[in-house]
């Protein structure tokens, strides 16, 4: 199984590093439009790495997976988000709960944690791309952090989608991708989820005249 040369693993490692870098820059980004652009770049990096793994290992289904990622994460979902933002006419800057340098420091802590967690597992991996499992876990956790520190609804959704990117990367890097039927199902869920998010945005705006999540903190225990 392990026939791919060092070139492929170098390339995948490069893209993995890019993915992590993009996750960090999303964490630091204040503007929504740039956030969407970063998100589509992340999707592109994911598609490219899947393609490389597919080419060097000859797993036909990974080509599908790469194409699916390209269509969904680089074209369709960013386009939907752009349209949504145009229709809602919200191009505001993103407010964060804690300031960005602190967030970055927490992010670095999360990375270290992720690598510590992934090391014993990575050592058992037989795939060419095993060293990337830590990066995948780190980008999942960074997206999680982004969802926690953002006040507005759209960045939260982008955080959620970026988390899905990290998970897909984990699937390709550690295991050569899940079986195709599962991957199709996941893609469908992500797409439907995005649509529902879109519908939600309109409802929320209708009710609250804003997409600020702060308005939605009335339900709590007294």
């Amino acid at each position, binding site marked *: 199984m392990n026939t791919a040369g060092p070139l492929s693993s170098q390339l995948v490692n490069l893209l993995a590093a890019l993915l992590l870098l993009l996750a960090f820059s999303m964490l630091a980004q204040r503007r929504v439009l740039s956030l969407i652009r970063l998100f589509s770049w992340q999707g592109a990096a994911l598609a490219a790495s899947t393609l490389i793994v597919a080419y060097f290992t000859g797993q036909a289904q990974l080509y599908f997976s790469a194409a699916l990622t390209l269509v969904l994460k680089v074209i369709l979902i960013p386009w939907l988000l752009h349209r949504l933002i145009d229709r809602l006419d919200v191009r505001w800057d993103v407010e964060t709960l804690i300031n960005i340098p602190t967030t970055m420091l927490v992010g670095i802590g999360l990375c270290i944690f992720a690598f510590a967690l992934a090391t014993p597992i990575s050592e058992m991996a037989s795939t060419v791309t095993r060293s990337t499992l830590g990066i995948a876990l780190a980008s999942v956790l960074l997206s999680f952090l982004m969802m926690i520190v953002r006040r507005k609804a759209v960045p939260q959704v982008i955080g*959620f989608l970026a988390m899905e990117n990290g998970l897909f990367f984990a699937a390709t890097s550690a295991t050569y991708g*899940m079986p195709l039927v599962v991957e199709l199902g996941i893609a469908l869920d992500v797409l*439907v*989820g995005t649509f*529902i*998010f879109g519908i939600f945005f309109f409802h929320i705006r209708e009710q609250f005249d804003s997409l600020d*999540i702060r308005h*939605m903190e009335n339900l709590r*225990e007294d």
Partner: protein
Amino acid sequence: MELALVLGVPLLGALLMAGFGHRAWAPEANAMMSLATLAAAALLTCRVIADGPFTAFNEQVFVDPFNVFLAALTAFVAFTTALFSRPYMRTEEHHKRVNSARLRLYHSMYQLFTFTMLLTLLSNNVGLLWVAMEAATLSTVLLVSLYRTPASLEAAWKYFILCSVGIAQALFGTILLYFAAEKVLGPGGNALLWTHLHAVRGELEPTVLSLAFVFLLVGYGTKVGLVPLHNWLPDAHAEGPTPISAVLSGLLLNVALYAVVRSKVLVDGALERNFSGSLMMGFGLLSVVVAVFFLSRQRDIKRMFAYSSVEHMGIMTFAFGMGGPVAAFAGLLHMTVHSLTKSAIFFAVGHASQACGTQDMGSIRGLIQTSPTIGWGLALGTVAILGMPPFGVFTSEFMVLTTAMREQAWATPFLLVALGVAFAAIFGKVQPMVFGEPGVQRLTHGPALIPVFVHLAIVLLLGLYMPPYLVDWYRQAAAFIG
């Protein structure tokens, strides 16, 4: 064949209702579709009893005593809830809380929700199980926000975000599981099939599997409503339409717990020490204790019973965590009786809050005088859920407690105190609602109370006498997971 029917009928129903769900006859059609699903599930059950477990559709779907029992329960409660939903949604329409477009959405998503739950239960592919579980979340999100009030939107948003994040953790767990399985079974579709995984569970890599279980427990545990991941649950129950509260509490939580138990069986095979069991006992006990202390602080009746669901899911998680045939038997029985009782309570609560025009417990008074059947339904349901004999909840809680005394003695005081606190809190609040001075209007559409009493009668029956074939059935399932 039966499998195709069980899954096909609700899917067809969802399509049909997407087109005609706003018609005057839609509520009846909805109930008919659910009845057809129930009939198919009954046929499937008969076949499993006769022929034993089997797989179908290229091994993607499988049936064994454990999941067929839950599928039958799901189909049954989905049917009775559809019956309850007829007058309930008509009254809501009469009060102008929903319009015809939303009714169409409601009926279509109701069927789709049934489909996704049944698919989750019957799926043999743990990846597909994840997909179906996520689809179950997506199909109910728009139902929680059906009234489009600020509070309901907030509840739905919380539900959506928390459950999506939770379920993303479960996906990571599934990926890790695949990662471990691929080494033994080789790459490809087989490595995610539960039956294959189960066959080789002793050879799976223990470190990977224990990490995978943590992610799976956190992920699916969010949907079970385990503390501290339970935040979405009371809001979603309180703000959505009551039939949805009933199926969320009675069915979805069970289905999520089913996914956790399935993962536990795999992990237990690979690990020597009782790692998964300890985690589940810890989470379960924490849920029980935290939930009961929230009970007395509630003012909204549906919120209070939502917290009661957290408590009961905690008891089940604890029981499955203890493991062993008796505890697993008790867990399964508790799943059944809780699902039936809690949905019956929500039916009664739905009619009561419609009759009083509020969900505020301070304003609901004297149900027994103005509408005795609703009052009795609520009173009996409450007595049943609090674990009073001779109802079935008593039997299962008694079994959990006695097993805990023998095997996990440290946990018994917590459980006993929690049950006592829950009793004081809920009984103290329900008693004036049922027996106080009345202030209730008449409902525009006669309430559907047959489901309430049918459910309670079954729970009573299970408490007094369990038919031998049912005991056999539970035993088989318990041996399978214990």
